[in-house]
């Protein structure tokens, strides 16, 4: 008996790591890998959620570009959203990081306060709040009215198809906290000796930022850019809640994930929804690679 325990204990000693990994491994297998593989298979079938799936070849992938009228809207809205909101967000977080890099009393508290929107941003509660603020009778219009912009104060900034995406972009830019913190850490790592040398040579603070800090933190800018592109492509909650679940008036808030949700869960066409999801993966991959290629010459790597 004692011998067996000893053998077992020796065995476990070697593989204890894996035992501890079991919860994660199970989660990864059941919640990530298996669904991933299955969805790839389903994307070539007419799976209707309850019926048996039948193989239909590339039909689903062809349908996107032929009979699915919403697909174009979804791609257009998503690309607009990503390419307007991500640069704005990166810019805003970078500027704030520079401002917060100064030593001001109570800075830690201010930093924490700026980070809060990042924690709240994607939540249902904030999306509902956004709907209240930017609706026809919302506080934003009251503000416009009070500063004399009556002609704009009757607009619904979340339902009017001309402006709806704008309020979604504002919501994203507002969540500048997490890239800001990363920028702040990067800026702090820039050796002060470089900056002091530049100051001695007569460089003003703008020149120091443009010529020294920005080049040195460029890998971090790329990192934030890629992370934010990926997360912007996956936006769902905000658009879902603000549009009331249907993608808004004239599909103005029909981001790609809402289209997938509508097809998959409202129309129960899981096969087609899987194909749409894989197209999203492809889109994200393409734009991530593009981001790397396009910034290759501008990003500084310490070699």
């Amino acid at each position, binding site marked *: 008996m004692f011998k067996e325990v000893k053998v*077992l*204990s020796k065995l*476990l*000693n070697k593989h*204890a790591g894996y*035992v*501890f990994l079991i919860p994660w491994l199970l989660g990864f297998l059941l919640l990530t890998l298996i669904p991933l593989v299955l969805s790839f298979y389903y994307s070539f079938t*007419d799976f*209707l*959620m*309850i*019926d048996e799936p039948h193989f239909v070849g590339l039909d689903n992938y062809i*349908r996107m570009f032929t*009979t*699915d*009228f919403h697909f174009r809207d979804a791609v257009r809205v998503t690309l607009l959203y990503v390419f307007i909101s991500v640069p704005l967000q990166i810019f805003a977080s970078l500027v704030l990081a520079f401002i917060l890099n100064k030593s001001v009393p109570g800075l830690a508290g201010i930093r924490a306060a700026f980070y809060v929107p990042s924690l709240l941003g994607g939540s249902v509660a904030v999306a509902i709040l956004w*709907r209240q603020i930017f*609706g*026809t009778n919302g506080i934003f219009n009251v503000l416009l009215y009070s500063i004399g912009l009556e002609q704009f104060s009757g*607009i*619904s900034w979340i*339902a*009017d*198809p001309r402006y709806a995406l704008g309020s979604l972009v504002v919501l994203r830019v507002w969540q500048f906290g997490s890239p800001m913190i990363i920028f702040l*850490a*990067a800026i702090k*790592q*820039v050796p002060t000796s470089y900056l002091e040398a530049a100051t001695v040579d007569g460089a003003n603070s703008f020149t120091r930022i443009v010529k020294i800090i920005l080049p*040195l*933190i460029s*890998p*971090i800018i790329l990192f934030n850019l890629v992370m934010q592109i990926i997360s912007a492509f996956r936006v769902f909650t905000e658009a879902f809640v603000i549009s*009331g*679940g*249907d993608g*808004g*008036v*004239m*599909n103005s808030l029909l981001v790609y994930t809402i289209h997938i949700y509508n097809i998959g*869960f*409202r*129309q*129960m*066409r*899981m096969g*087609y929804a899987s194909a749409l999801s894989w197209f999203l993966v492809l889109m994200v991959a393409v734009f991530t690679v593009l981001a790397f290629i396009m910034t290759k010459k501008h990003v*500084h790597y*310490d070699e």
Partner: protein
Amino acid sequence: MIQFVNVTKINKKFKEKERERKMRKFKKWMTVVALVLAAIMVFVACGGNGGTTTAPDADTDVAADDTTDDAPPADEAGDGEEPVTLRVTWWGNTTRDLLYQEINELFMAENPHVTIVTESPGWGDYWTAIATAYASGTAPDVVQFQSAQIGEFAAMGVMHPLQEFIDAGILNVDDFEPGLLSTGVFNDELYMITLGVTAVALYVNQTYLDELGIELWPEDADITWDEFEAFMADVQAELPDGAFALQDYSHNNDVIWAYVRQVTPEGVEWVNADGEFAPSLEAMSEWFDKIYRMRSEGIIPDVALAHEHTQMAWEEGPFPNRQTLFLFANANQIGTHQAGTEDEIVFRRIPTNPDFYNLHGDFLITSSFAISETSENKELAAKYIDFFVNTLAAQQIFDFELGIPGSLVIQDALLANASATDIMQTEYVNSVASIFMPFMVKAPGVWAVQDEIAGASQQVGAGAMTPEQAAQMIIDTANDLIRANQ
């Protein structure tokens, strides 16, 4: 160049030794934890089957009141049967949920071994939740449906036929009006028992209309869609800025359905014999064009405002607050709308259509209970449904919540003490029943087509598409959706 982790290089050797010692201690400790963990997992795996029993004390207050003060365990309190859990789901809101809960407690008081577990998502999320539950095999025992969905779900074989429970005397439908009972039939098999019947009505703010000095057409008279449009224009001419004669109805699936019934031959509706979308290009163009005309004349709010209206609670919406004078809504919602206003509300029927096949397209909407095929307590589920629809005490609580009850006996008993709005909806539904022709079961996929029609109205309303383009797009999309579901 940039380092996020700055390792200080001090006394490397000492540190390594210290680390080795700690590691040995940690490994020993880890082995113990791993062994315990492995043991727990083995136990959990063995005990898996026993995990589903419900705690016997999970009974309700009502049931507890009926038992003696000694409070014996619930499974012994009643008929000595095994404790069992029944899962029931409906589309709800906070006030409606209370009625179901109250009825459930009555049922549990009579059946102390039963615990009812409920789920009540709002209408907007309900169908998604139900479809997902059926797909994953975790659907509740008793599920609420609307007659319109019977085609989508019964065809997939997720509902259990109910005749066997009627034969066994568990489910009693003797008092039911045969026409109402038949709304739960699909392919000659009864799948659903109606909880209430209603119909789409045109709500009119009579008080406001009187103030404007405009006379409404008589209750028993019909007007055509064209006359209706002209009438709306007359009303709009009298209204102040910010008020609209008619609330946007372009997204109301039941009005769309009634229109489709008008423009297709009897016995066809959405899908024709060739399996194609039945309404013609001309009929669909006219649907979009009429809404477009009224929207551009300011009779119906613009698409953005109309979309905001759809997200409001009924009693807080534009109709009770005099921002619109006319509204298409189900007759059973009269109580909620009336609660939001002092004005007198009256009903008129959906306008008629002399230009196509049928003058009237009105139909009855029934909300019903069905039993899931996956349920392990089908008999109990049948007993529950029987209790819900045939017990006067339960129906007095429910009180026309989903429209007129299916049982004629219950109907008579309730009408004896009914409120003004309940009598009004009953009279209205009876007037619809007099012109009603039985509806066709919607083919799978049609549900999604209705959403597409609502969306296309917005495109037309905002000038992004002509009515003809929208109609053509709907026909193409509908054929694609119908094919995808075959």
